[in-house]
């Protein structure tokens, strides 16, 4: 019973991490512009992230190390420094987008401009991290995030043409706006295969004191959580295809998002949308903030743990405090959160190889993972993901230029 509860909580937590501003925005844009045709991108991204998260968890449970820890040790400081700068900048952009997402939810709820919410939201994110434990952040926000199931219920109520939805899971060539189609596909993959997800997951496994006995549970949580998250993203896409596309709305502004739920749930739908957007982005903002602080502290060998008092790990606490202060600036100065989201998802896709290539080496290193090394199938999958990551790195910038808007 305890194990079932642990798995259920783990899956809910993983869903909380998966669904954030990037996955909501890119799925809505895909549905609004290309109907069900881009479902395959969510499915592909979901499969990739299942394997990466499972391996990150297995690595932490068996070796007792986090990914940044092992990357610094195995690849040396120069590679770590390169990854630290690239991943740090991209994560800051994604964090700024998440803070912007919460601000937009509050603008929708109150009518007060989103930039006015930047400082209060930055403070709330900081306060929860400052006072909370890892368990509170991980599970509390994830359970609140179940409100995002409203997207699944909404899509089901609308009775979509299931045959067309299933057909969308298979890749197909665009019938119009090719550059835009591929740009959105790349953005969806960037939103799904977010390095912050597996870096945070590996730190979480250490915080939760996972051991070798968690290898099986980890597999179920990774597969269940990420699949469940993908289903919610697909539901957003389906809703957008059924409700935004016929109205000619292309998600050029977040204010168009309530149309995803209001036709189904009426006035309640508006509040469900505000709640889903606000909670999903708030949860992701806390996880990304911690991930940046973890990356810094683990890479430089500082004391770190969200379960300790801030004074016992001053550099770690200082790292997340500064991170939040920087990340709330774009929203404070009125930079459009949607523009920032789309750009940061593309930046994530363009820089994926930096954080994925180490998996191939670490997951085959006996000194770290011993008998839990990758088998041939997992290695084929990782090599395929790396190949995909390199393709994304090459095509993202040209697609951003030709299909970004």
């Amino acid at each position, binding site marked *: 019973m305890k194990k079932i509860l642990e798995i259920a909580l783990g899956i809910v937590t993983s869903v909380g991490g998966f669904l954030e501003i990037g996955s909501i925005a890119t799925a809505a844009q895909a549905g609004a512009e290309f109907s069900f045709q881009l479902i395959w991108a969510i499915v592909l991204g979901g499969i990739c992230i299942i394997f990466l998260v499972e391996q990150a968890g297995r690595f932490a449970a068996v070796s*007792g190390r986090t990914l940044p820890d092992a990357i610094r*040790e195995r690849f*040396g400081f120069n590679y770590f420094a390169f990854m630290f700068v690239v991943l740090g900048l991209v994560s800051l952009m994604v964090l700024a987008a998440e803070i912007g997402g919460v601000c937009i939810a509050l603008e929708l709820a109150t009518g007060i401009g989103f930039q006015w919410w930047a400082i209060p939201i930055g403070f709330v994110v900081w306060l929860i991290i400052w006072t909370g434990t890892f368990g509170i952040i991980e599970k509390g926000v994830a359970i609140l995030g179940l409100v995002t199931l409203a997207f699944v219920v909404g899509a089901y109520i609308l009775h979509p043409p299931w045959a067309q939805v299933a057909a969308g899971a298979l890749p197909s060539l665009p019938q119009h706006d090719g550059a835009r189609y591929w740009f959105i596909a790349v953005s969806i993959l960037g939103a799904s295969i977010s390095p912050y997800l597996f870096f945070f997951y590996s730190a979480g496994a250490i915080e939760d004191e996972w051991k070798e006995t968690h290898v099986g549970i980890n597999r179920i949580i990774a597969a269940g959580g990420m699949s469940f998250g993908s289903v919610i993203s697909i539901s957003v896409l389906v809703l957008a295809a059924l409700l935004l596309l016929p109205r000619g709305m292309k998600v050029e502004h977040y204010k168009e998002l309530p149309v995803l739920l209001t036709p189904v749930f009426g006035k309640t739908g508006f509040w469900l949308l505000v709640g889903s957007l606000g909670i999903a982005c708030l949860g992701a903002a806390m996880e990304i903030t911690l991930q940046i602080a973890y990356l810094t502290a683990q890479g430089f060998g500082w*004391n770190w743990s969200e*379960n300790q008092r801030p004074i016992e790990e001053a550099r770690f*606490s200082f790292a997340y405090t500064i991170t939040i202060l920087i990340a709330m600036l774009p929203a404070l100065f009125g930079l459009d959160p949607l523009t920032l989201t789309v750009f940061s998802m593309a930046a994530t896709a363009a820089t994926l190889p930096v954080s994925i290539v180490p998996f191939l080496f670490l997951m085959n290193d006996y000194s770290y993972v011993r008998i839990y090394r990758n088998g041939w199938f997992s290695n084929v999958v990782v090599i395929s993901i790396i190949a995909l990551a390199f393709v994304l790195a090459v095509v993202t910038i040209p697609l951003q230029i030709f299909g970004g808007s």
Partner: protein
Amino acid sequence: MELVRDCLDKQVDDRSQRRMGRVDGIILVLEPNRAPRVAYVELGVTTLMNRVSHRLGRVVARWFGRWGISPEPYRIPWGQLKIGLNTVIADVEAEKTPALEWELWLRKKVIGRIPGAKSQIVKQ
């Protein structure tokens, strides 16, 4: 032992298992007619920057000097180290070494002054 594989970039803990930093550099002593000898390991930003490029190392050292911060890395004699599988254990008390200078400064001047840093509602 292979120094780069088994020691460089490893986590350094003090004798109470408190994290101090990482092995940022290894100092070898070369003496005539004798085999090279490992003398110290170094912990410090300037050592790290020197590994990226000597020019960057000099820039950081100069910048530190301007702010009145010593650019010298902290050196731990090889004899005080025990190389483990996951960590390097230094037979020192971390808080009494320059390795935690920044940590203690931040604790005293910044983090410790923020309400809730010492006695929070939720954290034990």
